[in-house]
């Protein structure tokens, strides 16, 4: 059984070389890997989970998950994943390969404690990076997301191109400005197409995950959604 990214068909229309990550076909390359001005990447394949409720923070802490203290802030896991605090009592957790925090938390959420409510996360998860990122964000978002405009490790719950998104600045871990964006998966194709259209105008394009995970291997062929 194969998971499918909300952006699978968007990437399938590009010159994509496919691989597999976490049981999901992923774009290893999509054409703009060498383009450093602006790249769009689909990170929907990363494992993620969510939870909310008055007991969520303490429940996570009891499982040795380091919880960001401030509302609307995020922190990273030692293995590359992250936890974002959405408001006061909701959390989004995402593993970077080969992280295992999300799997452990997801398993534990089968029987959550009182005041802890699991949140199924099926987001379209994007990364935008490159020198032209600020221009891309300025054309799609009405709040200032540029470096220095927000508190350190801030989580922005805002509108981008007319839809609700979660945005964090992860530039510190990259050589160029870099942002992570999550949106409802059913809006994913729309957001991807909108951002890609502007990105192309700005001289950028879509890139595959080899751009950030060089060890990923191509699976060969042009994988279909049901492969």
């Amino acid at each position, binding site marked *: 059984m194969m*998971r499918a990214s909300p952006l699978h068909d968007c990437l399938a229309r590009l010159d994509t070389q496919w691989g597999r990550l976490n049981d999901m076909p992923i774009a290893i390359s999509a054409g703009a890997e060498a383009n450093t001005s602006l790249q769009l990447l689909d990170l929907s394949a990363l494992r993620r989970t969510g939870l909310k409720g008055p007991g969520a923070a303490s429940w996570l802490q009891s499982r040795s998950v380091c919880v960001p203290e401030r509302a609307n802030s995020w922190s990273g896991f030692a293995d590359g994943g992250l936890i974002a605090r959405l408001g006061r009592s909701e959390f989004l957790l995402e593993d970077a390969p080969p992280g295992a925090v999300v799997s452990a938390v997801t398993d534990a959420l089968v029987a959550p404690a009182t005041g802890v409510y699991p949140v199924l996360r*099926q987001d379209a998860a994007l990364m935008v990076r490159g020198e032209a990122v600020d221009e891309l964000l*300025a054309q799609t978002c009405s*709040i*200032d997301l540029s470096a220095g*405009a927000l508190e350190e490790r801030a989580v922005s719950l805002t509108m981008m191109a007319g839809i609700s998104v979660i945005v964090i600045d992860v530039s510190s871990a990259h050589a160029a400005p870099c942002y992570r964006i999550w949106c409802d998966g059913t809006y994913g194709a729309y957001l991807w197409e909108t951002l890609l259209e*502007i990105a192309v105008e700005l001289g950028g394009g879509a890139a595959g995950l080899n751009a950030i995970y060089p060890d990923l291997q191509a699976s060969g062929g042009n994988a279909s959604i049901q492969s």
Partner: protein
Amino acid sequence: MTRLAPIAGEWIDRSHAIDFEFEGRPYRGFAGDTITSALWASGVRVLGRSFKYHRPRGVLSLANHDVNALVADGRSLHLRADVTALAAGMRLSPVNVFGTLARDRAHLLDRFARFLPVGFYYKAFFKPKWMFPHWERAIRKLSGLGKLDFDAPRGRTPNRHAFCDVLVIGAGPSGMAAALGAGRAGARVILVDENARIGGSLSYARGTDARPRELLERMNLDIAACTGIRVMPATFAAGYYADRSFALVDQDKMVKVRARSVIVATGVMEQPAAFRHNDLPGVMLASAAQRLIHRYAVQPMQSAVVLTANTEGYVAALDLHAAGVQVNTIVDLRADAEESDAARAVSEQGIGIMRRSCIFEAIVTPDRFGVRAVTVCRLNTDDSPDSASRTEVPCDGVAMSVGFAPANGLLHQAGARMLFDEGIQQFVPNGLPAGVFAAGRVNGVYDLTTRLRDGERAAAQALEHLRMPWSAPDVPAPPAPRCPSFAYPIVEHPDGKNFVDFDEDLTVRDFARAAQEGFDSSELLKRYTTVGMGPSQGKHSNMNALRILARIRGRSIGDLGTTTARPFIHPVPLSHLAGRGFTPVRRTPLQCLHERAGAVFMQAGVWLRPEYYAREGKSKTEAVTEEVLAVRRAAGLIDVGTLGKIEVSGPDACELLERVYTGRFQNLKVGMTRYAVMLDEAGVITDDGVVARLGEQRFYFTTTTTGSASVYRELQRYIAQWRLDCGIVNLTGAMAAMNLAGPRSREILAKVSDMPLDNNAFPYLGAREGVIAGVVARVLRVGFVGELGFEIHLPAELAAHVWDTLLAADAAVTPFGVEAQRWLRLEKGHIIIGQDTDGLTTPLEAALEWVLKMDKPFFVGQRSVQAMRARPIKHKLIGFVFPPAYSGPSPKECHLVIREGEIAGRITSVAYSPTLKQIIGLAMVAPEMAAPGSLFKIRVDGGTMLEAEAVAAPFYDPRGERQRMSLAQLQARYRSQEVA
């Protein structure tokens, strides 16, 4: 050619020649030229024709404050030649001319001007009524400026946002000083100016003083060195919006700026004097002449008269003189001698001065396209001309410098209070909103040194507002006050043609007429005369109009006040306003599979849904009919992922549902579902869905497709308001959903799932969690389409796998779309909220009394329903049918039900039922028409009246047996259908 020798600081690049056409003739200019400067340099003096009288017009402001020179370049209409950069290959033509500028057939209108005074059209064209279409066509033809190309390709205009600590609008000396003050203190500054280069008056108002140019060069370097300052030239601030948001417009796009503070240093706009023939080509504002000289190295005229009432006029005379122009005389409206360095320099140059005098009229050249002289008169004590003292002074141009109007539109929009300062004859800010500051000439400060200090002062105040470090600037003692604007630069003339508004061809006499008609307040005067309502938006006319009105009424200008200033202060291209369209579209995770299956999509709110699946050689109706029959006879599969999907958990989860839905849920057993209807406080139906109880304290429920966001938002509000101990999760996007329906659905589902599916283990209205095609899913046994059905809910990322597996499980499974679902549910008499109900429909009207549990302590809308029950209802939703043999036109949704010639209701749903083989529908009608068997009329397209019969719904399987079928019953039914 009137191009001058190179001038220090000129904006043109003489190494880069640009060829272009104007009215079909070739011309050459330079990079950096505007269209007007290039034409003027080529000796072209008539740049356009006026809007109403088609009078020849040339340069007036050369600053976007008038539209004398409005031209088209192919599909680009209404280019303002004064400020539009010259580009290679331009093929320009004037927009308001019948023929050519030299031979404009409409010039005759000028001869009839006295028969076409202001307001004549209010009285002229409405009688006789039958003539109006003729007049309308004629007026449209005369008043249209340019011809729109409807085949023009759609442009892609970016829509951009920007942010800063300090937005400085206007890059004259005070604006630049303000930007430097804020930028050096560490603020993020945006410095915006409508001109192609920053500098404001420093770039053109020089005289014999070298300081302005030196100062400009130094400040340019300083700004370039200050990393915190972002300069946006050729960009104007078009409007102010709440929280210091501004629309900045350049040639390509609009930028929406959110500024933490703003400094408005927009300066002033030079105003024309009104005298007879003041609109002839060659008569221009002194600042326009200076801009031609210093920015574009163009000699504005050869022989000049300078009309002035301020120091700036003397500086302009020196600039003209330095450019080789013969300045024949300076006509000074004032009685007192000008005491300034410029005046002394003028004397040294031997230029004559006529004090306390005015230009009575400009004398037209024989070809009527220019000025050959002016008549100068002495002024009486009441500012009227002494016509007995006429003197004729030869010239081919006039430079007017009689006063200024502040460019304070943005300050008005920001809510600034304005005070008319009689000393300087100008409105100045007298109370600014927090975070908004004014600096420079818009603030009433004219001396150059003081303007610089005023900019620094504004920067310090902005920094203080931002709580950033600031230091008080060194403010020297203010210079002796001088009045830059003459109180009444208006000269009456018995033959008129003394223009006040050049856009609308309004003369001094027009204002007197308006006042005589009773339109004697600033707002009424504007609307009657249309002063300031042209493309210039009053930039060169509002101030003089106000001076005339004040003089007519014997009131001070401060008493009269100004008209309201609204965004935009300059016209903005529609393409900029449209920008890039963000129209979010939501797609279920099965979208690509639908596309591959040939789905024809429709919009359902923000969603794209398959309306039906196209079949080769078949019409839409035939395709939908096949889908309907497949569901009725075997099994169909529909994507219902657009339904709202919400989970609520916690000790008070049930209590929440009890309060927000009309039904009862305390007694809902775990593993069962129940239909649920939601009302608003007024008792109006707002949403419906199915609630499944997954555990004692855990519920999962659906909402309508369009209602998911609003229901989720309302529930969050209620939880907080009622302080309930429960958590709510919106799973609309995270969960996919599909409905496998039809008599064979159980059998087919059994092929891909080990879940017990028989009636005992999984009864009708049951809810189970199980594994389907290897995926853990929630399955609800509901029957919206009136057949045995299983609604499967599962994580979105696995939906495609399950959908494909179900289709592959049995060839009988047919995907069906929204249209088939509508027909199926209509056969079953199930309503769709929002289609069969509207924003006023109550459960009593929609035949939903059965969902009202009035014995509950509370539900939202309960009290309203109680009140409604005491009154008769006004409408009732009923079923209707047409006779099976009927073959005429079908009614459509929203067709009206007519009784005795009056509207008595409307059709809410209608379709031809492939199952029942007749037209069936739902209609909202008067209650007395609702009895089964009643006949009523429906008015369809073309006015035809059709007769329908009211019947009880459901139309199909009224006892609901098919939804409840046991496996044995199903198999028997299926076999009988096979035989049939």
